[in-house]
């Protein structure tokens, strides 16, 4: 019988980040499994899945795949980082914005609407210019600035014609008059392990590294630290990528929280290994899980 590994990395596409996480496990002398999400066939009865590791670090590029697998793993008693609850909130911008706003985390004003007829009213509530985003999606896809009514009407009509019910959930956010950069913070538990500015490229107003943006180190100020702490305490402790903008009028605002954070860009502006810090967090959680079980065993003996 094969030995059950204590840690696994769940993937559906191995990128630089997943290889780096594996390397950091190897450096620490820890054996681990690479688990291909696409090949999983799982019962839903909650019986122990002994062929899978006891702790799984979710790294799926597909939000729905990662979320549903986390839910199944949790039901089978596997410690999953991030939890399905965190993934659910972070993968849906509507839920993220709602939780941030309701819990006093500074975030841009956001209004949602659920039909093309009511979308224009939502835009008017936010005001021009604003930004339209899909509630599910990443890498800056379908994120569009709207500066006037004509453009708004055209975009709403286009979304309506896509014949996809997700496209008729409209999410509009105030456009922050930020400098040509935002801040990406990688938080593990309550700790900020990396903070970088992400500058947009000359060709694109968006700052996503996937779209050609580049990273530079960002100093962790008390305001940044406080905002991140507030954010992770309302979203949940795990491995998070928190994106913030500098609002010249009000200070830092959190506009997105990523549940499966990519950190290749942030690593280029950081001296120590971000993957190493993530692995240290995962293994420390693992140790905490093991301790109570040993205590229970001692009592029953």
């Amino acid at each position, binding site marked *: 019988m094969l030995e059950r590994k204590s840690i696994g990395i769940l*993937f*559906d*596409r*191995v*990128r630089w980040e*997943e*290889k780096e996480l*594996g390397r950091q496990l190897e450096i620490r002398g820890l054996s681990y499994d*690479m688990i*291909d999400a*696409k090949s999983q066939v799982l019962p839903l009865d909650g019986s122990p899945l002994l062929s899978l590791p006891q702790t799984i670090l979710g790294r799926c*590029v*597909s*939000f*729905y*795949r990662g979320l549903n697998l986390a839910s199944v793993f949790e039901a089978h008693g596997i410690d999953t980082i991030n939890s399905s609850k965190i993934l659910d909130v972070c*993968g849906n911008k509507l839920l993220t914005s709602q939780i941030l706003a309701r819990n006093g985390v500074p975030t841009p004003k956001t209004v949602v609407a659920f039909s093309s007829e009511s979308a224009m009213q939502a835009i008017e509530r936010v005001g021009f210019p604003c930004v339209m985003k*899909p509630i*599910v*999606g*990443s*890498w800056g*896809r379908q994120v569009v600035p709207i500066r006037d009514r004509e453009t708004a009407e055209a975009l709403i009509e286009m979304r309506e014609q896509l014949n996809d019910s*997700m496209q008729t959930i409209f999410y509009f956010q105030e456009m922050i008059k930020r400098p040509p950069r935002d801040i990406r913070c990688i938080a593990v538990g309550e700790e900020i392990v990396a903070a970088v500015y992400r500058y947009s490229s000359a060709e694109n107003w968006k700052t996503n590294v996937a779209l050609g943006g580049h990273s530079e180190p960002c100093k962790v100020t008390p305001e940044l630290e406080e905002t991140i702490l507030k954010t992770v305490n309302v979203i949940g402790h795990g491995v998070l*990528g928190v994106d913030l903008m500098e609002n010249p009028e009000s200070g830092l605002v959190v506009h997105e929280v*990523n*549940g*499966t*954070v*990519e950190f290749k860009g942030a690593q280029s502006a950081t001296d120590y290994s971000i993957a190493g810090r993530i692995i240290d967090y995962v293994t420390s959680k693992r140790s905490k899980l093991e301790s109570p079980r040993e205590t229970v065993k001692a009592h029953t003996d």
Partner: protein
Amino acid sequence: METKCLECDASVHVQDDAVVGEIVTCPDCGADYEVAALNNGTVTIKLAESVKEDWGE
């Protein structure tokens, strides 16, 4: 390691330290492949999934 593109038959190079699940791209036609298996210096590839609307961080 070398393998053949399933679309255009060009030679596709796979790094020696590649792992299962990694993506390689055909230099000729641009098709994306996922490393499906590694066995004693030989590599098996399959067509990679295309980007879906829920992909990202």
